[in-house]
């Protein structure tokens, strides 16, 4: 069981460690800066932090000494945009410029130092040198359907989920808001949309089932059974049991099926966690009570977990990267827009409050 959690917030990166007395904030890095995401690479021990400096753009930093020191490394950079490129389907051209690093993932164990980055406005990037340099995955960027993607959660479309098949590093799935789920089985040479079964209520009726305009908020796969996936979608919860070839909606899940975050148990594909809010029009917990919903039977039924979570006038929202489960499946962490951080050491049965006064939390990540 890990003893370290990285918490990315609007005002810095916080390292939370477990001591005999419980979990406490051990160190703050980048204090005052907007840290949007962090990644701990178990293969070589490197940590990565994505920053958004606003005026000065999105940057990446790497630590090789468990957060003691950080070095700025290369950030994904889009290639020159051809003068005759017309990729704005609504008449608004897409800027070929990095807006945000929205996903960071390690490649397979057989490819040390290789990383994937999903970005807004929709580019997928790969690094083979621990993030020092990045290359746009041209095949996906130039896919004709990419021009049909549109913004969800931001003005421009973005890749927030990058899942590398542990059985085959050449197979990668990416989740796009709003652009569905895409699969490559040939190391990024070709791509196929994999969002059949999802439903987009926010579109005109004839486009509701169109896979290319779906808004999966986050896509996760069970590490031990990678063909079993879960998606927290803008319009509800979906699961796949056939490697994303088809998706089935889970229509009931405690107080609501709307939310952003999802986590799946690393060995039990039927066990998944969600953090519901009322709806897309009311992005606050139902009845002002923060709960986590857990299924252990593939979505047939859900436990509503509230032990240790605020149950009175709580208006916390948990963003898509702000719920994590560790590699044992016992530790859960969630952080909210209100700056609350909770950890459970018993798979969600009971949560303890680590802090109630962190900056707004974008993401949590067990080391």
């Amino acid at each position, binding site marked *: 069981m890990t003893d370290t959690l990285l918490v990315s917030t609007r005002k810095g990166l916080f390292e939370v460690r477990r001591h005999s007395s419980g979990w406490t904030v051990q160190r703050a890095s980048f204090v005052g800066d907007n840290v949007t995401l962090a990644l701990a690479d178990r293969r070589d021990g490197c940590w990565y932090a994505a920053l958004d400096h606003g005026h000065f753009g999105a*940057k990446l930093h790497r630590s090789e000494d468990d957060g003691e020191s950080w070095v*700025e490394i290369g950030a994904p950079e889009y290639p020159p945009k051809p003068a005759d490129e017309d990729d704005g389907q609504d008449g608004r051209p897409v800027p070929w410029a*990095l807006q945000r690093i929205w996903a960071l993932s390690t490649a397979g164990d057989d490819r040390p130092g290789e990383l994937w980055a999903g970005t807004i406005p929709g580019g997928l990037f790969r690094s083979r040198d621990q993030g020092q340099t990045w290359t746009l995955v041209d095949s996906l960027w130039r896919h004709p359907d990419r021009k049909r993607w549109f913004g969800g959660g931001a003005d421009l479309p973005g890749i927030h989920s990058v899942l590398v098949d542990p059985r085959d590093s050449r197979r990668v799935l990416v989740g796009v808001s709003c652009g569905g789920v895409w699969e490559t089985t040939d190391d990024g040479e070709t791509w196929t949309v994999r969002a059949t079964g999802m439903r987009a209520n926010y579109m005109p009726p004839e486009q509701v089932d169109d896979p290319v305009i779906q808004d999966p908020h986050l896509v996760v796969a069970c590490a031990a059974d990678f063909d079993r996936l879960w998606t927290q979608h803008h319009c509800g919860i979906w699961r796949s049991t056939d490697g994303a070839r088809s998706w089935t909606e889970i229509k009931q899940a405690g107080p609501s099926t709307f939310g952003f975050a999802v986590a799946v148990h690393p060995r039990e594909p039927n066990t998944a966690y969600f953090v519901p809010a009322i709806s897309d029009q009311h992005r606050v917990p139902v009845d002002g009570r923060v709960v986590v919903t857990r299924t252990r039977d593939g979505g047939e039924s859900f436990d509503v977990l509230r032990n240790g979570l605020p149950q009175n006038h709580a208006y916390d929202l948990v963003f898509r990267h702000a719920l994590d489960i560790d590699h044992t499946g016992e530790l859960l962490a969630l952080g909210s827009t209100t700056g609350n951080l909770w950890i459970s050491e018993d798979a969600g049965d009971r949560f303890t409050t680590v802090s109630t006064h962190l900056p707004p939390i974008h993401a949590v990540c067990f080391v």
Partner: protein
Amino acid sequence: MPIVHFTANLRRHVACPSVTVEGATVREALARVFEQNPQLRGYVVDDQGAVRKHMNIFVDGVQIRDRVTLGDPVTPGTEIYVIQALSGG
């Protein structure tokens, strides 16, 4: 030769002392700066080389007009200020 100054707020993230460089346009002058200091480039301009949305560049007290290709002319005595726009970002 033009001299280029950078906002103090930028110095918190990357070293950027004032520097005297050659160049007949803002683009040429900044290109010289970025040759000497490659890390600085991404803090001032975006992937396409345009001035970042929430950055401003002044040439002898006048805001540049060409934010895309930075073609505004400069002269040997010009002072170029690279500063933050007081807008969002």
